[in-house]
């Protein structure tokens, strides 16, 4: 149990927690735009932390394993997936929000008394 294992476990568990929280948010939040917020959490924070946890595992194998092992290639692939997810999922969320707005989905806003509209 060395440093990389501990870091990897912490990141994986945190990422799993954020993914679950975002999933519950997507299911339970009241209107579409707040659900988009829940989806954004799972897409960036959850995915990023889980991928970083896996990166720590691969780096550990790369540092301790035999020189011919493919651990550094695995690390590069993980970082590529992380990069693509970080570029594409906010873009997808943005496109989704714009499409919903231009299609006439009304955001749920609070009225002056602080009571939300039904």
């Amino acid at each position, binding site marked *: 149990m060395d440093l990389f*294992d501990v870091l*990897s*476990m912490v990141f*994986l*568990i945190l*990422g*799993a*927690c954020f*993914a*679950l929280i*975002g*999933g*519950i948010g*997507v*299911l339970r939040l009241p209107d*579409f735009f707040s*659900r*988009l917020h829940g*989806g954004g959490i*799972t*897409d960036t924070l*959850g*995915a990023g932390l*889980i*991928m970083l*946890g*896996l990166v720590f*595992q*691969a780096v550990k194998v790369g540092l301790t394993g035999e020189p011919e092992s*493919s651990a550094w290639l*695995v690390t590069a*692939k*993980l970082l*590529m*997936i992380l990069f*693509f*997810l970080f570029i*594409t*999922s906010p*873009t*997808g*969320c943005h*496109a*989704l929000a714009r*499409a*919903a707005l*231009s*299609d006439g*989905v009304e955001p749920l806003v609070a009225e002056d008394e602080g009571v939300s509209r039904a």
Partner: protein
Amino acid sequence: MFNVLAITMVAILATMGLALVRASLGPTVFDRILALNMFGTKTVLLISVIGFMTKRPDFLDLALLYALMNFIGIVAVLRFTKYGHFADDQAEEGMV
């Protein structure tokens, strides 16, 4: 380490289930697309975690492919819900 990966996998599967519930409930079509987007991202994570659990990191190639295809798919479905077809701009003007 295997246990932590298994816990992560169960959490990802639970999130995929929640996304499926939202996709089947979701009042507007955009809720369904959002759930689909989440499902695709979680597929990428699930493939990666299973690859590490079974000590076969070659699965990462599949995950990379899914990460790229998911984005294209979401944009294509959004475009389809807006315009009703997949044609490009000139074809649109011709059809309108």
